[in-house]
């Protein structure tokens, strides 16, 4: 199995084998972070640019840590303080970064498809760190990596994705990845947060949390993204917590060893209770640790693929 893509734009565009390759490579990279010297020279002399058009701490820092553990040089561009404010277009910004002889752009953008557009315009690698409502591939990869690590496989697992499906790129990437690897996915949300025709992606839908939890091997709880769409209707918070919030009481009726995931940041008391977030079923902080290994694997693979083409 060879990785031939210079970019990582979304899990929609990957074969199951390519997803497996990233996961396997990440397994090898996980060990690096356990060493006393947490660094390998694999991307020495390479430059990675974090280009973030949306606020992000954990994803940006995770990518930065991953790139640094591979010995790449990392440059952070926060667009609020850059020429983007002066009206520079995305493509122009990208071409300027390319002219600086950077090797990888890691981009977060509020427009769906922004990473795809940038990747087409540039010869250097583009890694999508989240674009609008479209995809957040590395988040889904680290979710799947964590699931596989905990449960030994993905095929046949019953995975519930709960919450703001409509506005969630994390949900979309997870749906692509999990269904490609053979998991049974159910998305669970209030009707107003279920996108139309979401069933066409091969998932089941439900608005009954307890019903969904009964058979779930894992539940991925999404954050309510109140900031993403000011005009959209959102359920009233307390009402949402009552119907969909993951509480200890609710978990007591689920499988005893159900895995609880959350991409962060958590709204405690809206999506889940504090007891659950910090409880025995939660793997939320392990997801953060695994995120580094997954992102190291992605950066390594896209850099290798680009080398091979030059």
């Amino acid at each position, binding site marked *: 199995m*060879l*990785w031939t893509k210079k970019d990582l734009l979304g899990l929609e565009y990957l074969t199951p084998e390519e997803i497996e390759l990233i996961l396997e*490579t990440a*397994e*090898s*990279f996980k*060990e*690096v972070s356990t*060493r*006393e*010297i947490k*660094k*390998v*020279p*694999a991307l020495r*002399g390479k430059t990675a640019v974090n280009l973030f058009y949306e606020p992000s701490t954990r994803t940006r820092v995770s990518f930065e840590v991953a790139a640094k553990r*591979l010995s790449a040089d990392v440059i952070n561009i926060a667009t609020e303080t850059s020429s983007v404010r002066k009206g520079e277009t995305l493509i122009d910004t990208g071409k300027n970064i390319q002219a600086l002889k950077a090797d990888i752009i890691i981009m977060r953008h509020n427009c769906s498809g922004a990473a795809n557009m940038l990747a087409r315009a540039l010869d250097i690698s583009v890694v999508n760190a989240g674009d609008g409502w479209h995809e957040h591939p590395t988040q889904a990869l680290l979710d799947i990596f964590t699931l596989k690590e905990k449960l030994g496989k993905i095929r046949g697992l019953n995975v519930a994705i709960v919450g703001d499906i409509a506005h969630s790129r994390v949900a979309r990437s997870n749906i692509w990845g999990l269904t490609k690897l053979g998991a049974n996915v159910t998305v669970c949300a209030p009707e107003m947060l279920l996108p139309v025709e979401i069933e066409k992606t091969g998932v089941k839908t439900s608005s009954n949390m307890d019903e969904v939890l009964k058979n779930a091997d894992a539940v991925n709880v999404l954050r309510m993204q109140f900031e993403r769409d000011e005009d959209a209707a959102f359920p009233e918070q307390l009402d949402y917590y009552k119907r969909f919030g993951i509480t200890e009481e609710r978990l007591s009726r689920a499988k005893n060893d159900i895995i609880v995931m959350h991409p962060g940041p958590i709204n405690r008391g809206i999506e889940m209770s504090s007891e659950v977030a910090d409880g025995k079923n939660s793997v939320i902080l392990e997801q953060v640790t695994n995120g580094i290994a997954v992102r190291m*694997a992605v950066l*390594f693979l896209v850099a*290798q*693929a680009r*080398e*091979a083409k*030059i």
Partner: protein
Amino acid sequence: MKQKAKILDKEAINRSVMRIAHEIIEKNKGTVDLCIVGIRNRGVYIAKRLAECIKKIEGKDISAGALDITLYRDDLALASGQPLVRKTEIDFDINDKKLVLVDDVLYTGRTIRAALDALIDFGRPKSIQLAVLVDRGHRELPIRADFVGKNIPTSKQEIVEVHLEESDGSDEVLIAEKE
């Protein structure tokens, strides 16, 4: 690629590994502070066999680990096919240990250079010694082996193939010519 000659068969490999085990013990005056690390893939299997032989001879268990050197390769940036990154498993402290590094074939020495860099990231062993099943010559770096199963003079046009039960289903060392 056409097959040329079988250099070592199963018995010869076993005898070489056993002799190297004896030499390791002799040189290190026993097994105190001794540990062994194989380079992926086949070096790992030879390292495990050496550890078993040492146990047979001395009755002592020694720590054995596996090292993947992909991320330390000096040709990583070259378009020489995509290397698969595999796991490094060294779950013991190598600081102040007498470490025996093991590989199947010693050729240019570049793999060993990468392995030395990788090992230093894990700690500071008291010493690092090198054991190889086959030394085929043509060094490009100032590196030599402390323990050698068999010296095989080769030309650069030839390919040395080491087959081991664990990875290839049989124990043999073959020499073939590139066409």
